[in-house]
C-alpha cells in the first residue's frame, strides 16, 4: 500500500464537503466521521447514504448539507444503489459520455443498514466486485428510530429493545464481526478506524478509494443520545475503544490467496507493549448504556465476561496480524 503525503494542516484548508447547518445532534461523532471521510476525497465523488441518522439529519427537505452529488434510496440497499452508480459510470465511459477520467463512489451505511437490513446488498457488491468504498459508521444501535438494538450493538448494552433488568443484562448477544466477514468475501481493502485518530482515518479512506475493487471501512461512532454520555465525550470514547482493544485498528487485503492483516499505529503499539492495554471498565463506566453493570452493585461476572470477550477477539487478531 503506497503512503500518501496527507497532512492535517493541508487537509484543514480543504473546504468541507459536508456543510455546517446539518441537524445531527450536538456532539454527534457520526457527523465528525462523515466530515473526515469527505476530507479524504481525491476528485469527483458521488455519495449514497442508507437510511439512518446521517441520511435523515443531513438532508432535511428542502435542505441538504452535501456539497457533492448525493442520493438516498432506502434502508436496505445503499450498496446496491452505489453499485448501480458504478455500473452506470462504466457504461457512460464506454460511450464517451463521461466528462471525468474517474469518479469515486462512497456509500455510507449505519450499523442497522449494514449488519442487518443492508447486509445482503453489501455482500452482493463484494461478490460482484464493484469498485467503490463502503463506509460503516457504527453507533451500535438504531439510533435514528429510538435506540433499538442491532447486530452491531455490543454485549450487555442497554437499548430500548434490550432493556437491562432482572431478565436480561442488556443485549444478551455479542457484536457481529462484520469487518472480518467482509474480509472473507475477498474484498480489495478492509480497515477499521476511529475518529479519535483523524489522520489514520483519512488515510484509510484514501486507500479505500485507491483500491481497485470493493473497499470497506468500519468506523466506530459514539452516540451521545444512545450511549448516554455528555456531548463533549464522544471523541474520548472513540479513543478508549481503541486503547482497551475493544475496537482495534487494522487493515486487511489479499495477497497470493491469503489475507494480510496489518495493525495500525495505536493498536500496533499495544501489540508490542501489552501493558499499555487499558481495562475495558474505563470505556464502559462513562456510558449510561452500561450503568447497570456498576449500579446498584457491580456485576462482576458480566464485567469478567466482557473483558474475556475482548481478550479473546484481540488475541485472534494478533494471530491474524502475525503477532504471537
Amino acid at each position, binding site marked *: 500500500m503506497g503512503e500518501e503525503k496527507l497532512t492535517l494542516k493541508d487537509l484543514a484548508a480543504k473546504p468541507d464537503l459536508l*456543510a455546517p447547518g446539518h441537524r*445531527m445532534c450536538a456532539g454527534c461523532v457520526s457527523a*465528525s466521521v462523515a466530515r473526515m471521510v469527505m476530507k479524504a476525497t481525491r476528485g469527483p465523488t458521488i455519495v449514497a447514504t442508507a437510511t439512518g441518522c446521517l441520511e435523515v439529519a443531513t438532508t432535511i427537505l428542502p435542505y441538504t448539507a452535501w456539497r457533492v452529488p448525493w442520493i438516498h434510496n432506502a434502508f436496505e440497499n445503499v450498496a446496491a444503489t452505489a453499485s448501480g452508480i458504478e455500473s452506470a459510470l462504466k457504461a457512460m465511459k464506454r460511450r464517451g459520455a463521461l466528462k471525468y477520467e474517474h469518479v469515486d463512489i462512497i456509500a455510507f451505511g449505519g450499523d442497522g443498514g449494514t449488519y442487518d437490513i443492508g447486509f445482503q446488498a453489501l455482500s452482493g457488491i463484494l461478490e460482484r466486485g464493484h469498485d467503490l468504498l463502503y463506509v460503516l459508521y457504527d453507533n451500535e444501535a438504531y439510533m435514528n428510530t429510538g435506540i433499538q438494538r442491532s447486530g452491531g450493538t455490543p454485549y450487555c448494552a442497554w437499548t430500548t429493545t434490550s432493556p437491562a433488568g432482572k431478565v436480561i443484562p442488556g443485549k444478551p448477544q455479542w457484536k457481529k464481526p462484520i469487518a472480518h466477514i467482509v474480509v472473507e468475501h475477498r474484498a480489495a481493502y478492509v480497515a477499521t478506524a476511529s475518529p479519535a485518530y483523524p489522520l489514520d482515518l483519512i488515510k484509510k479512506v484514501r486507500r479505500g478509494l485507491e483500491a481497485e475493487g470493493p473497499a470497506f471501512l468500519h468506523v466506530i461512532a459514539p452516540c451521545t443520545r444512545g450511549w448516554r454520555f455528555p456531548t463533549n465525550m464522544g471523541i474520548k470514547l472513540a479513543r478508549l475503544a481503541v486503547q482497551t482493544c475493544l475496537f482495534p485498528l487494522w487493515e486487511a487485503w489479499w495477497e497470493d490467496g491469503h489475507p494480510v492483516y496489518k495493525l495500525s499505529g495505536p493498536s500496533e503499539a499495544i501489540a508490542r507493549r501489552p501493558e499499555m492495554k487499558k481495562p475495558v471498565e474505563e470505556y464502559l463506566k462513562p456510558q449510561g448504556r452500561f450503568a447497570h453493570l456498576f449500579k446498584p452493585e457491580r456485576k462482576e461476572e458480566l464485567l469478567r465476561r466482557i473483558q474475556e470477550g475482548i481478550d479473546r477477539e484481540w488475541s485472534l487478531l494478533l494471530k491474524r496480524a502475525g503477532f504471537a
Partner: protein
Amino acid sequence: MSIKISEMAGWREIPVAGVAYRPSTESKTGDWRSFRPIVNEEKCTGCALCHFFCPDGAISLVNEKAKVDYDFCKGCGICAEECPVKAIEMVPER
C-alpha cells in the same frame, strides 16, 4: 381494466423524487447552543485537531488559529475537551 405498458409514462416523464436543493447553511444551528466555546489565541498552536473533531464543521483555522463560527456551533464541547493545550473554554450562553 387493463393498462398497456407501452402507454404508461416512461422514466423521463416521471417527476423527480424528493430533491433537497437548498444549502443546509441557511439553517443556523448556532441557536441550539447553551455553552459557547471561547478560543484563547495565545495558547492555540494551530494543530487543527478541533477542526477535524467538530461534528459541525464550525471551526476553521485563520492565520493558524482556531476560529469558531457561532452561526453553526452547537456548543457540544468536544473541541474544549480535546484541545491538547486546553486553549478552548466553554462558557454559559446568556
